[in-house]
């Protein structure tokens, strides 16, 4: 039984904390976990010093989900006009039904299948005799009911085990139906070590089956794709608002508030801006290799980060008109942000935060806490890889284990007809000379203070210990963690679903986040945890009548 009722904050040493975290583990577990807990030195090594993207330990209560969740839930979930059929027992479809707050705006008439849940609801006989016929029938029924432009099929654990050939089934159905693109994802839950594998499987298939399907020129200038933005709580809406205001044309978002056609047209953009490095950097690479679109890392979480990212995009296009427009927009938006932050800063400055979430979010949200004057004393990812922690320069030195090798890497090469360099060598040199960095990401560690704790795949036990020992003013993770942390009297903010809040991206989002954190860390609610008789339980028969 733990307690975090604030006593005078004890001073802690990171090494002691680390020791505390693993003390209780069986030796084998302790050894393994020790490698995933790093006392940050904020260096940029070429060889990774933290172990990440490795198996979760059986029996150790993890925050992680599965490959199916990463594929169907995270990546494909936000696209509104594809009928997503889960091939498997009912559960997987049910749990991924409307539970992620990835918003979409279909207008009054547009196709929108997101409020629906489609499943083949496999039964025992399907497991015994195979589910291909049923899947075929299910696709046909979906087509007859809705006539969607595309149907996607997602494999759950048993499908791979019983050997249903979902890719053949979907290929055949695609031919049979003619006007409907049908394809499948082998995203069985047991694959890989976390959602991350699912992201990869999803993106591979999107790239293989959809990207490049529509060559028609889209109108507009300064065409980009926004990769790895999932419109949780309306983040994408806010980013789109800013793009519109700047005159930047977003051809496609992977995959917040997206449509089938956005994916199909992605190759017509001239720049890829990568938000969530973890879930999609390889798509950026493939788009570059196949179509010649360069990519940069951006971050629209945090007002300053947003300004920085906008400038980076403008600088890429190098057009004075755009550069000026971006500066004008920033100048228009920042005052409101600063008014709020300066007022709230007086109540948040010096407070501390912990974040254990996603594969990039922990890093992104550090920006916002910095803007609130709050120190991130410990952080980590749920499904990050080593490059997400320590920067892309470690990539060559990451040893692939069996689990990672099992996740397909697409072989792509330049498209004969459609590959087209977006910048001449000369332009590229100029940008490089100006210090402009493509495909660069330095990771979380360098941005964290020395001596802070970076923990990969934090688990329930360690989370509780961390909170006990370091008593942060706020803790950020997911729904499964929320209430055990709050029981300790520490407010817990979900950074997957944002609880009920958002958007937190862009300028307006920053304001929302400041106000939300102010509400959480300064709420009087946390002072009610003890009853009067628990504070003073002196018993007296002589009640002091007035």
């Amino acid at each position: 039984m733990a307690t975090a009722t604030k006593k005078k904050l004890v001073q802690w040493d990171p090494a002691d904390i680390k020791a505390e975290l693993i003390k209780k583990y069986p030796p084998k577990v302790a050894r393994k976990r020790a490698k995933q807990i790093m006392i940050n030195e904020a260096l940029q090594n070429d060889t990774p010093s933290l172990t990440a993207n490795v198996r979760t330990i059986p029996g150790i209560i993890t925050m992680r989900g599965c490959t199916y969740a990463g594929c169907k839930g995270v990546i494909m979930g936000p696209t509104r006009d594809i009928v997503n059929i889960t091939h498997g027992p009912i559960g997987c479809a049910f749990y991924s039904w409307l539970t992620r707050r990835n918003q979409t705006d279909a207008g009054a008439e547009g196709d929108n299948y997101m409020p629906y849940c489609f499943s083949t609801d496999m039964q025992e006989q399907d497991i015994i005799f195979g589910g291909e016929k049923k899947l075929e029938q299910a696709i046909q029924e979906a087509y007859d009911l809705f006539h969607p432009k595309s149907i996607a099929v997602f494999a759950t654990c048993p499908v791979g085990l019983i050997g249903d050939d979902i890719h053949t089934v979907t290929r055949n159905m695609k031919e049979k139906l003619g006007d409907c693109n049908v394809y499948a994802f082998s995203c069985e839950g047991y694959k890989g070590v976390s959602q991350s594998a699912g992201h990869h499987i999803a993106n591979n298939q999107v790239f293989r089956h959809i990207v490049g399907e529509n060559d028609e020129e889209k109108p507009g200038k300064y065409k980009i794709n926004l990769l790895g933005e999932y419109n949780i709580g309306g983040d994408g809406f806010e980013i789109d608002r800013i793009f519109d205001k700047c005159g930047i044309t977003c051809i496609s978002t992977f995959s917040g508030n997206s449509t089938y056609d956005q994916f199909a047209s992605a190759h017509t953009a001239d720049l890829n801006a990568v938000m969530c490095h973890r879930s999609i950097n390889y798509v950026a690479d493939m788009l570059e290799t196949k179509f010649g679109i360069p990519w940069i890392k951006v971050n629209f979480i945090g007002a300053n980060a947003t300004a920085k990212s906008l400038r980076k995009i403008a600088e890429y296009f190098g057009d004075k008109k755009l550069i000026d427009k971006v500066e004008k927009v920033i100048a228009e938006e920042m005052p409101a942000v600063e008014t709020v932050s300066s007022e709230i800063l007086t109540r948040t400055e010096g407070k501390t935060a912990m974040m254990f979430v996603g594969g990039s979010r922990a890093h992104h949200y550090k920006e916002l806490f910095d803007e609130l004057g709050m120190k991130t004393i410990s952080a980590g990812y749920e499904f990050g890889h080593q490059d997400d922690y320590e920067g892309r320069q470690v990539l060559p030195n990451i040893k692939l284990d069996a689990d990672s090798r099992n996740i397909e890497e697409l072989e792509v090469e330049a498209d004969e007809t459609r590959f087209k360099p977006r910048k001449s060598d000369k332009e590229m040199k100029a940008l490089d000379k100006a210090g402009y960095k493509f495909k660069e990401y330095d990771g979380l560690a360098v941005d964290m203070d020395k001596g802070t704790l970076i923990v990969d795949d934090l688990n329930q036990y360690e989370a509780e210990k961390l909170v006990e020992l370091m008593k942060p003013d706020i803790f950020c993770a997911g729904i499964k963690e929320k209430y055990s942390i709050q029981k300790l009297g520490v407010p817990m903010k979900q950074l997957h679903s944002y609880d009920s809040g958002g958007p937190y991206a862009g300028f307006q989002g920053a304001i929302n986040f400041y106000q939300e954190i102010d509400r959480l860390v300064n709420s009087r609610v946390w002072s009610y945890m003890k009853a009067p008789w628990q504070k003073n339980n002196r018993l007296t028969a002589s009640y002091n009548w007035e």
Partner: protein
Amino acid sequence: MLLRHTPTDISERKALTINPAKTCQPIGAMYAALGIHGCLPHSHGSQGCCAYHRSTLTRHYKEPISAATSSFTEGASVFGGQANMLQAINNIFSVYEPEVIAVHTTCLSETIGDDLPQIKKKAETEGKIPEGKYVISASTPSYSGSHVTGFSSMVKSMAMMAEPTGKKNGKVNIIPGWVEPADMEEFKRITGLINVKTILFPDTSGVLNGPLSGEYKMFPEGGTTVEELKSTGDSIGTLALGEWCSADAARALDTKYKVPCSILDMPFGLMATDRFIDALRTIAGVSIPEVITHERGQLVDMISDMHQYLFGKKVALVGDPDQLISMTEFLVSMDMKPIHIVTGTPGKKFEKRIREITKDMGCKVNVKAKGDMFLLHQWIRNEPVDLIIGNTYCKYIARDEDIPYVRWGFPILDRQGHQYFPTVGYKGGLRLLEKILGVLMDRQDRDAPEEKFELVM
């Protein structure tokens, strides 16, 4: 419209389930296991299952849900999950120190044919299960039954912890079925008043409706203790509430340990509660205390006082079989008309029970087991109703069709109260009635032209 693609014309579907009215077995097993004191549920499968179940239960209860998983990898899926399970047992007992680990299987581990009892034996022989600690297991493949049958299976495993001493304990086993913590509490209040000694299992009260006190207890005070579970074999009998949720466990105790049982409907509403209370009365050979009769009378009083707002109102229901059977009976008893009734859980006898209960209602009734909410919505499109009762997913239908709606069932992800206020028993009936009347009267107020707007209702 949020469900803009749902057509009015109903076409038969053989393979595609749309907007399910059920979920898979393991989550039921997990919920049941949380009703054992000091128990850590364990999901023997890939880690996603466990994550999904924990998330869903957390959203429903706004409480921490602890459960572990075997975290199957591709390798384990090929070579079997024994190694993972053994490692898990060892880690769990060392790190979290539960009294019991309640393991349930998944489609994955069932498909590859892991044999849990055998694995458990191995763990025992390898000394991975500390003295006085327990590992129980239930087979809950996601590809059969539903969350309801999964619940039932784990409850049966709990019953099988019985260790009869041959000496009767003078208690009655009460298997409440899948109800809320507040309902379990209410059962204890009622049996306490009637003065019947009971063993209630599972019992999630005090586990999933806990306080905020600055302390986090992975294993809260609540739950049925191992001692109690061992003692169920010495009980004078078992009252199982709900054929789907509770009957198997009761029958198992009967066959295996000769503990006689009765299967009753879940005591939602007047009639079902009458039968439950009267069963307790005759079992205990006591007379019912005035306070219970008084509560009953209050329910009857409110029904009679408000009858004009209930009479003839059409209702659409979706949920789980045991709950729907009693709710349908309750609605019919108040002269309401439940005309569309769907459960996702299989079981033809469900449709039979509903048909019996509604046979004198004098109007066509659509009822389907193994149905889905897409079908329910289509029925509503074809014959509109005055009220929808069901879980949170009904809100999409209620909004699109602009129909008053009472949240009841599992899961409820967007409102509070179900953890704290019972809907079983007579007091529970008053609460259900308050909620039903509330939404019906709110609608009357909303739609009344100014000259018909009422002060007194």
